[in-house]
């Protein structure tokens, strides 16, 4: 197992480097940042001075080597906008997103496992239909739509929750609620689908013959066997949340990395783009390794080739 882990870690480092190269060169295909940082009526001389100051006038490969050199000293560059280290900006925003994402995925996953399993226990039942319709409706409604309507209803009309921002526990409720919708809907469907198959397999009959409680049959026998795709989908959803719960972050004024990344991309704040990508990529890669290990834990038949 350690051999496998080491190999995966190595591969991941290579991928991170590849990703950085990609991001570095490709971002620079997307236009000149001076147009965005200087006022529209800035003179051409001012633009040139700006480019020279930040080294954008040098050939790309030189810029890249400079960047690599700086990386070796753990210098990830300065944010053009924020007047401070890009990595500092990214690392400040990341935990905020991570907290949200972890909570949302965890809750959505837990809830989906229960709802999906119960729906699968009696396909076609009233509960099944209801659960499917509600979860799917939530998952396919535009998230900003839900977010804003949520604010209008719960904060403005009913005055139950704060509209937005961070601080108290109440501030978490709506962002997490909105963030959960899509993962919840998708996971309910995936759980339900794989569970229906698992519940009609022979080993479930064995468990019934042993007198195992229905709940336990569902959750310990059938669910365990259908977890693989569930974990994968949940992992992917977690990834997309880690990568940015952009809508939720920007609507609710949550200072997370998704909004930061989008802003940086739109503003061509290259150093920040690179740093945010680096931070999220590391998180995503670790998550994926964890998921792969989880596969092997969940299903003893799965083996990975270390050679």
């Amino acid at each position, binding site marked *: 197992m350690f051999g496998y882990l080491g190999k995966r870690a190595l591969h991941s480092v290579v991928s991170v480097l590849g990703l950085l190269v990609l991001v570095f060169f490709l971002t620079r295909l997307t236009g000149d940042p001076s147009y*965005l940082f200087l006022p529209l009526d800035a003179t051409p001389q001012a633009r040139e001075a700006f480019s020279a100051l930040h080294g954008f006038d040098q050939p790309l490969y030189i810029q890249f080597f400079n960047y690599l050199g700086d990386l070796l000293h753990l210098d990830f560059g300065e944010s053009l906008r924020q*007047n401070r280290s890009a990595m500092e900006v990214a690392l400040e925003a990341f935990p905020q997103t991570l907290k949200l994402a972890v909570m949302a995925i965890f809750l959505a996953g837990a809830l989906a496992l229960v709802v999906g399993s119960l729906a699968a226990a009696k396909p076609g039942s009233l509960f099944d239909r209801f659960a499917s319709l509600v979860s799917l409706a939530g998952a396919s409604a535009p998230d900003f739509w839900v977010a804003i309507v949520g604010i209008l209803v719960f904060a403005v009309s009913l005055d139950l929750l704060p509209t937005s921002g961070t601080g108290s526990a109440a501030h978490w409720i709506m962002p997490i609620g909105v963030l959960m919708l899509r993962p919840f809907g998708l996971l309910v469907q995936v759980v339900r689908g794989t569970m229906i198959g698992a519940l009609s397999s022979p080993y479930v009959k064995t468990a019934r013959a042993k007198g195992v409680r229905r709940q336990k049959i569902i959750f310990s026998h059938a669910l365990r066997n259908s977890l693989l795709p569930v974990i994968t989908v949940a992992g992917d959803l977690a990834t997309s949340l880690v990568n940015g719960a952009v809508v939720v972050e920007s609507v609710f004024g949550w200072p997370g990395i998704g909004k930061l990344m989008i802003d940086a991309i739109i503003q061509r704040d290259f150093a920040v783009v690179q740093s945010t990508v680096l931070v999220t990529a590391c998180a995503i890669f670790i998550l994926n390794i964890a998921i792969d290990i989880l596969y092997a834990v969940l299903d003893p038949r799965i083996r990975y080739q270390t050679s």
Partner: protein
Amino acid sequence: QGGANNITIVLPEQPSNLEPCGSILTDVGQVLSQNITEPLTVIDPKDGTPQPKLATKWERVNDTTWRFHLRDGVKFQDGKEFNAEAVAFTLKRMTGGAFTCNNLAKFGSAKLSVTPVDKLTVDIKTEKPEPILPALLSVAMMVSPATPADKAVNDPVGTGPYKLNTFTPQTVVLDRFDGYWGKTPDIAKATYVWRGESSLRAAMVQTGEAQLTPTIAIQDATNPKTDFSYLNSETTAIRIDTEQPPLNDVRVRKALNLAIDWQGMAELFGTDVLRASQMVVPGINGHNPDLKPWGYDPDQAAKLLAEAKADGVPVGTTIKLIGRNGIYPNGNEGLEAMMTMWEAVGFDIDLTMLDVADWTRYLQKPFPQERGPNLLQIMHDNNKGDAAFTVPIFYHSSGQYATFSDPKVDTLIGEALNATDTGRTKAFQEIFSEVHDRIAVDIPMFHMIGYTRVGESLDWRPNLTTNSEIPLAEIRLKK
């Protein structure tokens, strides 16, 4: 929150930094200007004239030199004294080039050199004559000499009535500065937060989570008790690329102006908007009040087009209409509507919406090769009191945005820039009428309206400058 004299202001976007040299940017200026940092002069929104702030008075020593007399007894928030040296330091820091100073853009290519005369007097010299230097200096925010001169900062120290407490990714907090030279303001503490969604900002003021938001969308301004509109110094327009046929024909350009149902369009932006005939708002020196905007006359437009066609102008050519996403509220819809109207009189329009960076390539010289005939959605903001911040860039043949060259206009501009007082005003007014009536070089649309929502506990009204500053000291608490 907390005490009654603590308020929360909700901005539409996060201030990307707090560098005083970037105070012309809305996000920075709304926090910084007149609160933490102050300039030598301020512009009176009513008539565009510079008024005293940290300078008490000024005079023109000669063509290229202005002398400023500074206010006595002013202290920076770090205890340092405000004096001629401090002015020199600030201006040198601005022009030093060690970091990018956005405010410098307002000076164009003007080069400044500062000489302290005595403790409270400075001479500022420019290479070329600069008749509006006092107005220009309204963007130069005075900073403490302890500020690093070689890099941009996020912890500004100025002379204003408020000093920075904290700046985090969630909030900016300002505290009242006890050593302020002027009248002690009502508000003791101001917390700035930011939310992108207009309806959310409106809701926050409604629920009392915030007391003020400088901008909300027209459709959210539904409560006459709290929502105030103001002419916000922004003028929207469509720039015509006059070098490209068929747009090089004046009849075609006039037809473009005449084909739009302006009253219908006004519905989109709020009925309080002013139909514009020129690129500056009333109150700016050089605004021509006699200039009549084009009306809606689709028949006339069709006729002009037919005439042009008869003369061999390729009026059927596809014209690219280039918009910028999110440029102003309802901007996209506006373009869509205009496109439909133009097509109704016989134009062939192809609409493209671009993001800022891409759009800027079309805005500024050098223009992209092979751009073809195009119309560009623009918005111009001149709140600095003088048409000089508008006319040369748009209408001089060497102007950044200009797509045409007209010798007569060039000469007029040269004269206007060097003129002072009424002569200056007249000259600019003539230029506006030239480009509008004779050349029909662009399609001015509206002088736009902004809406703010102000909590019922506050006594404050927005004005022309609200887009660039929200002076906390002017906010009063209602009893």
